[in-house]
C-alpha cells in the first residue's frame, strides 16, 4: 500500500536513453561474442580432433617398423620426434601382446597445463585409440591424449575479446546517448524557455529556434504557430478590453466621461485635496431651453447641440481639468489646483461666453443656446462628493432662477433652504 502511495520517481531522458543504448549494445556484443565463441569452439573442436587423428596416424606410420621389429628404443625415438612438436599431452605405443613399447608425456604442470587438460578432457575425443597395421595385419595400437592448448587459447582470447568489445561498446553507447540527448534536449529547453516567457511575462514575441530532429522541429513550428495565434488573440483582447473600459466610462454621444467616471475622479481628487489642502471647484452646467430645442427641432438637432456644447466647454478648460456629461443636458466640470475663487469664476465666464456664437447645424441654419453655471468650492461648500454636487446643483438652479446664461456661486448657508423651497 505504501509503495503505491509513494510518488514514483520519473526517470530522466538521459537515463532512459543511456539505459536503452547500453542494453542494446551489451545485448548485441554479448550475443555476437558468445555465439561466435561457441561456433568457433565447435569448429575448432572438429579441427582439433581431426588434427589429433592425423597426428595419431603419422605416429602410426612412423612407429610401424619399430613395432614390427619390437624395437622399443626406435619406437620411443619415433614417438618423441612427432609428439614433441605437436599438441599431444600423452602418447603410448603397444605391441600386439599389450606390452607398452613406447611412452611419451609432456611435462606441463603449470596452471595453464592444468587448464589445458581440463579443456582437452571436456572437448576432445580422448584417448584416441588407433591400431597399427602392417600388411593389413594389426601389429599393435597407440593411445593418444590431446593437449587442447589451441582450444584453450581460443577460448581465452574469445573471452578477452568479448570483454574488450563490451567495454568499448558500452563507452560508445554512452557517448552516442549523450550526443542524442543533446540533440533532443536542446530544442526542448528552447521550447520550455519560450513557453515560460509566454506564460510568466506575457511576451509573445519570442519564437522557438529550428531543431535538427524532424519531430521536434515540427513541434517547435506548431508551437510557434500557436504563439502567433496567441499573440494576435492577446492583442485583440487587449484592445477589446480597452474599448469596453472606455465605453463603460464614457458617453457615446459626446465622447465625454460619464457620471460614474466623473464621480470616481471627483472622490479621488477629494482624497488628494484633503492631503494637499488645495482648493477645488465644481461647476454644474445646464443648457437653457434645451427641452424646447429637442421638442421643436427633433432629437437629431438636440444631439448636435449637445456635441457642440461639449466641444466648446472642453476647449475652454486647462489640460488637467475634467468635463463630464452627467446625463441629458447636464454637464459637470472639475477644476483642480486653483489659486483662487476668481480662477474658477473666470473659467465659468469663458464657458458662458463660448456659447454666444450661434451653432452651425448640418441641416443648414444656425441655433443659439446658453448655459447656466453653478459653482461649488471645496472645502467651503462641502467636503464630499454628494455635498459638493448638491451645492453646485443648487447654485446652478439659483443661476437659472435669477438670470439664465449666467453663473452663480453656491452659498452654503442658504443652499439647504433653497433645496427645501424647491422641493
Amino acid at each position, binding site marked *: 500500500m505504501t509503495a503505491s502511495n509513494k510518488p514514483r520517481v520519473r526517470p530522466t531522458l538521459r537515463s532512459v536513453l543511456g539505459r536503452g543504448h547500453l542494453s542494446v549494445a551489451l545485448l548485441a556484443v554479448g550475443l555476437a561474442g558468445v555465439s561466435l565463441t561457441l561456433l568457433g569452439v565447435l569448429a575448432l573442436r572438429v579441427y582439433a580432433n581431426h588434427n589429433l587423428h592425423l597426428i595419431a596416424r603419422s605416429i602410426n606410420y612412423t612407429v610401424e617398423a619399430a613395432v614390427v*621389429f619390437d*624395437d622399443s628404443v*626406435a619406437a620411443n625415438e619415433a614417438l618423441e620426434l612427432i609428439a614433441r612438436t605437436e599438441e599431444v599431452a600423452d602418447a603410448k605405443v603397444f605391441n600386439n601382446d599389450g606390452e607398452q613399447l613406447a611412452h611419451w608425456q609432456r611435462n606441463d604442470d603449470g596452471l595453464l597445463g592444468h587448464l589445458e587438460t581440463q579443456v582437452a578432457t571436456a572437448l576432445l575425443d580422448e584417448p584416441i585409440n588407433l591400431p597399427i597395421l602392417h600388411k*593389413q595385419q594389426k601389429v599393435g595400437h597407440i593411445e593418444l591424449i590431446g593437449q587442447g592448448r589451441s582450444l584453450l587459447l581460443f577460448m581465452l582470447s574469445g573471452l578477452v575479446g568479448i570483454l574488450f568489445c563490451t567495454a568499448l561498446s558500452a563507452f560508445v553507447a554512452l557517448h552516442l546517448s549523450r550526443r542524442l540527448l543533446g540533440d533532443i534536449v536542446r530544442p526542448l529547453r528552447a521550447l520550455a524557455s519560450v513557453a515560460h516567457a509566454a506564460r510568466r511575462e506575457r511576451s509573445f514575441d519570442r519564437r522557438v529556434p529550428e531543431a535538427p530532429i524532424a519531430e521536434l522541429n515540427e513541434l517547435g513550428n506548431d508551437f510557434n504557430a500557436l504563439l502567433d495565434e496567441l499573440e494576435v488573440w492577446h492583442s485583440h483582447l487587449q484592445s477589446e478590453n480597452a474599448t469596453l473600459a472606455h465605453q463603460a466610462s464614457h458617453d457615446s454621444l459626446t465622447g465625454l466621461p460619464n457620471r460614474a467616471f466623473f464621480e470616481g475622479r471627483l472622490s479621488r481628487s477629494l482624497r488628494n485635496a484633503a492631503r494637499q489642502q488645495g482648493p477645488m471647484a465644481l461647476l454644474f452646467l445646464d443648457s437653457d431651453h434645451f427641452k424646447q430645442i429637442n421638442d421643436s427641432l427633433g432629437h437629431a438637432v438636440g444631439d448636435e447641440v449637445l456635441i457642440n456644447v461639449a466641444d466648446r466647454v472642453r476647449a475652454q478648460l486647462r489640460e488637467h481639468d475634467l468635463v463630464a456629461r452627467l446625463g441629458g443636458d447636464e454637464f459637470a466640470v472639475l477644476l483642480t489646483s486653483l489659486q483662487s475663487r476668481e480662477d474658477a469664476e473666470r473659467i465659468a465666464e469663458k464657458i458662458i461666453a463660448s456659447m454666444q456664437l450661434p451653432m452651425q447645424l448640418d441641416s443648414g441654419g444656425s441655433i443659439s443656446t446658453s448655459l447656466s453655471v453653478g459653482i461649488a468650492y471645496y472645502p467651503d461648500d462641502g467636503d464630499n462628493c454628494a455635498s459638493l454636487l448638491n451645492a453646485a446643483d443648487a447654485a446652478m438652479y439659483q443661476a437659472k432662477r435669477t438670470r439664465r446664461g449666467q453663473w452663480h456661486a453656491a452659498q452654503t448657508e442658504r443652499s439647504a433652504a433653497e433645496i427645501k423651497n424647491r422641493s
Partner: protein
Amino acid sequence: MTVAGGRKTGCVLSLLLAALLLLAGPAHAQGSVTAVQAQQRAKAVTQVVLGILSYARWPVEPVPLRLCLVGPTEYADDLIKGNLQNSGQPLQVRRLLAEDREMAQACDAVYIGKLDHGQRDRLFQAVSGHAVLSISEADDPCTVGSLFCLRVSDQQVAFEVNLDSVARSGVRIHPSVLQLSRPRAVQP
C-alpha cells in the same frame, strides 16, 4: 632316381646335423645361454626375420615365399615351424646345404648360420645376380655378402644392413627398416 638320391643324401645330412647339434648342445649349455633364454631369443629372431621379409619387395612377388636355412643355425627353430608371413601369405621354410647349386632358383631368402669363409663365398657367388634376400645369423661384419646381419642379445635382436649388397641384390627394402638398422661402432 636323382630325386630319391637327393632325398637320401638330405636324410643323411639331417642326421649328421642332428648329431652335430647334440654335440654342440652341451657346449652351449656350458655358456651363459640357458634353454629359456634360447627360446626367447629364437622367438625374437623369428619376429625380426619375418619383419625383414615383410618389408622386402622382390621384382616378382614370390608365392609362396621360400626361405632357406643354410648351415648350422642357433635361433631358427621357431622359424622352421612357421608357414605364414606377417601379411598372411604362405611361407615355405626348408633347410638347404651350403653347396646347393640350385639355391638361387630354389630360394627367395636365405637365413645363413655358421659357415666357413669358403662356404660363404661360394654361397654368395651362387646367389649373386639373383634377387635373393640374405640374412646372417651371427658374427658377420656385414661388409660383404649378406644384406642383413642379426645382432642377437638377451635384451633385443638388432640388425645391420649392408646397403651395398641391398643395392646389388635387386630386392627392394623399405626405408623404415633401413632406419631401424643399427650399424655397429665402426670396427677396424
